[in-house]
């Protein structure tokens, strides 16, 4: 549980604090290595999160498409030589769906980190992942909720935690928009 002391935002953020808990946060986890997937899944479960592990980013994109409201965040390995890799997933989940995406990799090259952050990643973690790092990733979900709550309040919308697109488009239209974007983005003959 968080005790934030935000000045502006007042009542709205206090309400968010009381309602928000990291336990049960739903994470979509992607890593091509089944070894890493098993270890990271266990680490996440130990933090109290719910985990859906996937070995291929392509499956993750389909999963998100079919269940757009089932996840609070995406945690993905950056590199996947076969199929869609982390950068493409970042575009879809992060930008189109406005889900917090945390990227991890064994690669600690500054340029890679920059590229990820510029592509919309909330955070970049270096493998091997540790309990100490994972126990705090809920902050990205919380931050997102806070930001959306403030935006909704500013727009005079009473519903909390809805992404900006949703406050102007009905859900069905949004989903159709997203699937068209996916169609254009994904069907580029990527080998799998």
């Amino acid at each position: 549980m968080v005790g934030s002391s935000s000045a502006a935002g007042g009542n709205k953020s206090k309400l968010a604090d009381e309602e928000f808990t990291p336990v049960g946060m739903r994470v979509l986890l992607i890593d091509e290595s089944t070894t890493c997937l098993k270890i990271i899944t266990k680490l996440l479960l130990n933090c109290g999160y719910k985990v859906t592990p996937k070995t291929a980013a392509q499956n993750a994109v389909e999963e998100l498409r079919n269940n757009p409201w089932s996840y609070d965040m995406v945690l993905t390995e950056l590199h996947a030589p076969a199929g869609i890799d982390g950068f493409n997933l970042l575009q879809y989940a992060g930008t189109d769906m406005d889900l917090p995406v945390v990227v991890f990799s064994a690669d600690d090259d500054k340029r890679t980190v920059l590229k990820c952050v510029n592509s919309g990643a909330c955070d970049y973690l270096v493998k091997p992942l540790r309990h100490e790092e994972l126990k705090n990733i809920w902050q990205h979900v919380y931050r997102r909720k806070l930001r959306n709550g403030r935006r909704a309040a500013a727009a005079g919308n009473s519903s909390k935690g809805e992404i900006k697109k949703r406050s102007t488009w009905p859900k069905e239209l949004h989903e159709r928009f997203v699937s068209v974007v996916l169609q254009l983005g994904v069907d580029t003959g990527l080998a799998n």
Partner: protein
Amino acid sequence: MKKSLFDQASILFSGLFFLSTGYLDEQFCQVEDLQDEASPNFVEEVVTLFFKDSGRLMSNIEQALEKYPRDFNRWDAYMQQLKGSCSSIGASRMKNECMSFRDSCGQGNVEGCMRSFQKVKREHAVLRQKLESYFQLLRQAGSAGAATRPVM
């Protein structure tokens, strides 16, 4: 999650067995630390997955070395995956050889790649042997104390 006395003891034991020789590093302890009452065979399961994973990756590399000559980008990409799996269980000697391989790729050095790959294979085989012995010892010690282990 509670940890049995046995699990605690085996963490100490692996320190002597592996860490001092450098085959495995601290990360292996982190993996052992995840073994608990909810996942009583976690370490062995992870190690089994690792050898399955790495076996597959190494045969991909072997094929690529033959089928795609001088395709350093491809070779490097495969080796990066193998390196990732190695670091996840703390296989430090094997990981170091993976890194030499990647260095050779960066330099466009085919000979260097071939030599490093042989070393990777050797480290892989040695590690498998050591871990098999390790689990065997644990099993022997475990069956001695089996009556006292918590029932799932």
